[in-house]
């Protein structure tokens, strides 16, 4: 009897677990599981380690910003994700497959390199169709072109003019359009805002946010904090081939013990008296020196008025004294010990 009861209990348990697995897995996949899984990736070039044990998971429909200076390994990591490079150790899985092995999964990835790498003697449309043909989706690409043109605000020039006659803005739009030709789920953008003026950068942010609305997952490499602040669902702080910190912008800001930054800028190198005056006001704060500027990271905004008073006594050459909320720039500096700009 006891044995019999135990048997029933085992069967029931098995049935429950099986049912839970069958029904929960698609939901689990859709909601919790990861689109990209980067497992302990190591990449070396000529014996030099560029990526050193990188682990990361990225969900669908997420915008992840890789933040780091040149040489931090952002571009290399992106090239491995798009399947152009192969890691020396570890692996990258996109939809469960390694992109540098599986051509199939490359059809789900769109790569927007920093240099446009477009063919000058073709029109934007021909470049678009050229890359669509490499994916073998020319017919589908033609059908989705109107929608892409709407998102990117592309005009007739796309069909009529050769790329070599394009302005910078036209090239950037074409560069994005080309990588959307095969309707990828994942867009990997390498420094898309480098060299753009503020207006162009804002319009690019707008495009990226519209693409997010379309359900795209995006990985964006940048060394500009504004990009991360505006676009990132999560920021990955990279430094010397490693991931130093991961989190939302707010999480990263909250991860350091300061809330405000006070910038004090002088016209010339401040002397000992000035330094003494500053130090006397902010024992609890962290002080950074950047050229003729001192940045105080603090939680106490009241020191601003004290500082102003003391400094006006000792330094007639004070250019700026202002307080602001702590930024990603400050966070990055505190995490890595280096400044990005």
């Amino acid at each position, binding site marked *: 009897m006891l044995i019999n009861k135990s048997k029933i209990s085992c069967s029931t348990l098995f049935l429950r677990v099986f049912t839970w697995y069958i029904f929960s897995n698609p939901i689990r996949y859709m909601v919790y599981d990861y689109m990209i899984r980067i497992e302990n990736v190591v990449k070396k070039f000529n014996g030099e380690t560029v990526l050193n044990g990188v682990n990361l998971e990225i969900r669908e429909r997420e915008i992840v910003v890789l933040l780091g200076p040149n040489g931090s390994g952002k571009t290399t990591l992106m090239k491995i994700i798009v399947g*152009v490079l192969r890691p020396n150790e570890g692996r990258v899985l996109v939809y469960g497959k390694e992109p540098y092995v599986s*051509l199939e999964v490359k059809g789900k990835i769109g*790569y927007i390199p920093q240099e446009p790498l477009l063919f000058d*003697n073709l029109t934007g449309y021909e470049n678009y169709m050229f890359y669509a*043909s*490499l994916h*073998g989706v020319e017919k589908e690409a033609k059908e989705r072109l109107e929608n892409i043109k709407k998102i990117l605000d592309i005009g007739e020039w796309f069909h009529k003019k050769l790329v070599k006659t394009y302005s910078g803005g036209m090239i950037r739009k074409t560069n994005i359009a080309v990588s959307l030709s095969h309707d990828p789920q994942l867009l990997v953008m390498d420094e898309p805002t480098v060299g753009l003026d503020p207006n162009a950068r804002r319009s690019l942010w707008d495009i990226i946010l519209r693409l997010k609305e379309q359900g795209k997952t995006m990985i964006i490499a940048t060394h500009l904090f504004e990009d991360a602040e505006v676009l990132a669902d999560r920021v990955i702080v990279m430094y010397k081939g490693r991931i130093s910190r991961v989190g939302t912008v707010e999480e990263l800001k909250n991860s350091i013990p300061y809330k405000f930054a006070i910038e004090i800028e002088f016209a010339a190198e401040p002397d000992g008296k000035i330094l003494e005056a500053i130090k006397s006001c902010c024992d609890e704060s962290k002080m950074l020196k950047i050229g003729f500027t001192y940045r105080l990271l603090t939680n106490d905004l009241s020191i601003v008025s004290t500082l102003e008073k003391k400094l006006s006594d000792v330094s007639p050459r004070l250019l700026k004294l202002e307080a602001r909320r702590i930024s990603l720039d400050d966070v990055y500096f505190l995490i890595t010990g280096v400044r990005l700009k």
Partner: protein
Amino acid sequence: MIRLKTIGSLVKYMLKMSIRSKSSLFWNIVFPIILLTFIVMLFAPKPAGQTTLTGKTINVLIYPETRDNDTMFLAEIYMKYMNNLTFDGTRLFEAEIADENINLNASLDMLRNKTYDVVLFLPKDAMDAMRYNMTVKAKVYVLKGTPNIVDEQLNELSITNYLRETGYYVLIGNYYYTSQEILSNSSKILQAEPRLYPIIKMLETLTEHSWNNTQIEVIDVKPKGVRSEAEIRPYVIGWMVISIIFMQYMFGGILGGSTTISSFFEKRYLERIFSTKMNPLELFIALIITWIISLSLSSVICLAYGIIGLGARFTLSVFSLETLYVVLLMLVGAVLSISIGFTIGLLVRSTEAAGIIANLIVWPTMMAGGFWVPKFMLPESVRIIAEIHPLSMLMYAITYVSTYGHPITMYIEPIVISVALTITLLFICTQIYLRYVSRFLER
């Protein structure tokens, strides 16, 4: 798995790019046409109705030792008669009298720099020698020790023969007029001495034939098996067309191919291309096909221009089996040149270096490989390059079959060697490409 449709699309777009590139259009279309026109104009035999070869006219500078009336009169007589002599419509001599302020040394310098072929020096007693001794007296300066011995001999013999003839005519003339004088008084002489009759009779015969005692008829005989220049001209142009097409293979295939593939890597297009579903072999096949089409297009335009514009002819009929073989051999030539070009580009991996190395290979082998000048005109030491150069082997096989009408079976050996080399080189090139493509991306 190779996707043919994708390769087709890739080829289509790459050809579009090539057609829109002005430099590519120039080097693939305009340049071979200019080169062909230039070579045909310079070296092809002239069409019917035009004189192709003219006899040599010997330039003579008559240098009188003194400017007195007698010597100048003699110089002018020489000049007048020399300039009137022709052979088959070509003047034998182009004579002129040296200017008063030119000395003998300056005249000889003009001989040395080939302004004149001969300097005819008339000494101050030349007129007296002719007048009183019936002797032609002159010095003839001719250039000796040049590489062209035939020319030297021709100059010397022509002028000395002319002067000997002149001496003969002076003698005959004087003899004739003296004989006439004797014969006009022959009746008186015979009355006085009748035994002189046979001598007078002989004198009459001699005088009658003194100006015309030769009956030589020159009859032109054509050499056996040699056609007229006008007849062979279309086939020579055909030979030149094939030559230009192969030169184009060397420029476009080796030089263009090497720089294109290295620039493809240098500009990092591969990064973006290989982030798509494209696999490296598909791209390589597409590049090879694009290049073959591009070279074939250039060849067809050259051929059409040669036939329609310049009148080139071939011994092959359009729909014969040999024509098909020739077309296939042309394709082999294109693939061979592309393989050489791509191998250079892949090994060097820099557009600039690839251009330099390809030029270093193309120019000497083109000069020594019998592409610019026919193989048989090359020095023996250089001809060996033409004998072993695979593109040269192919070109000569095609030339002999399509312009000389030789059967293709005569050239089986060079054809087999060239085809085997082409296949081997293409295989090596593909292996290098596949091996290096990942390394390129890692740079």
